[in-house]
Each structure stands twice: as structure tokens, then as C-alpha cells.
């Protein structure tokens, strides 16, 4: 199972899906586009504590994290 983690006021919301299921994968890709289109940043873990940003959906990603647009505080 792969997971999309979206930061929100509850801490986070997790969407799990089976990457082998074409319909679930399409839903995950749609969610990716909706979130990044709304200003969220997507990141992957590439190692213990190592992260990389992604700008397009990666169907092989096991865990994708989304956080809202950054603003000056």
C-alpha cells in the first residue's frame, strides 16, 4: 500500500491506496494534482530523514507528504 499524507488541522490525513490498482492509482494522481494545484508542496522520503520535492505524480512513491503553501510569518 502507498500513502499520501496531507497536513491539516487534525495533524494529518492519510490516504492509502494500492498502486497496483489502476483506479486507485488514478484517484491518487487526481488528488496529487488537486493538492499541488491548490498550492500544496509534495515531498518524498528518499532515506532516513532525507527528502526531495516532486512536481509531478510518482506512481512508484510509497509515501508522499503534502504541506500547504508557505507564507511569511
Amino acid at each position, binding site marked *: 500500500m502507498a500513502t499520501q499524507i496531507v*497536513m491539516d488541522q487534525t*495533524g494529518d490525513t492519510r490516504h492509502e491506496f494500492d498502486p497496483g490498482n489502476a483506479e486507485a492509482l488514478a484517484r491518487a494522481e487526481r488528488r496529487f494534482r488537486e493538492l499541488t494545484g491548490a498550492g500544496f508542496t509534495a515531498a518524498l522520503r528518499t532515506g532516513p*530523514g532525507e*527528502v526531495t520535492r516532486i512536481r509531478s505524480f510518482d506512481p512508484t512513491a510509497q509515501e508522499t*507528504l503534502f*504541506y*500547504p503553501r508557505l*507564507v*511569511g510569518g
Partner: protein
Amino acid sequence: MIAAVWLRAPARARLHALRELYRRFFGENTPDARGRRLLAEWLTPAQRAQFEQHRYFDVVGCDTGRTYRIHYGTAANVHEIDVEGHATMGWCFVPSGFLVPGDVMLAQKIALETDEKGALALANRFPPATHSEHFYRRPF
């Protein structure tokens, strides 16, 4: 059966059990606790150890190689530090919305490690002496 045992237990024991249940269930499922858990999952082992000991962790900016110290908090919690660990500049940038400290800190870490210049471009700077260590509340 459980109800019978429950009713026979002294009031003090019942209260203790209720408190423990509350602590375990709500304490570990609050947004704050979830944010801390997510943060811990995404920190390097060194950052996690530093955070557990000091309530902050250091990250290295991907563009300049400068070191930033991210304190537990949701605003004005990022300091650029020198080689001796002294704060030289404060940088304030946060994810929009009302996120818990763990989430805010994780977003700040990712931003500095993957798009340092972008993060600093939108950040507001502040003098590092604005807040003392006591400004940052205890996370747990």
C-alpha cells in the same frame, strides 16, 4: 464481567483508570501528538535525537549550506546559526492554515533542505534576540 469488576473497584482506582485511558487515547491522538509523530518519522536520526533532547533540531540549507535551527513552535521559530550555534538571524515562514507545531516544523525542514532560497525569499526576518529559549513552550 468487566462492568462487575469495574463497579467493585474503589472510586479512586476507577478515576485512575479513567485518567490513564484518557491519557492514552486522547494524548496520543491529538493533532499535536499526531504532528509530533509525523515529524519524528521524517527527521534524520541525528535530528530526532537532537529534538528529543533540546526541543529543536538543525537543518542545512540546500542552496547556501547555512545551518538553521528549528525550534518547537509555530511562528518565529527558525534561527540561522553560526558554527558555534549562536543565532545570527531569525526567519519567519510557515505553512498557511492553522497547523500544529510538528507539521509546521516539518514543512520548514523540507523547505530549507529542498528550496532554501524560495523559503527565505518569502520569509520575514527578525532579530535573533527577540525570543529567549523560554519563549518556546515545552512540547510534551
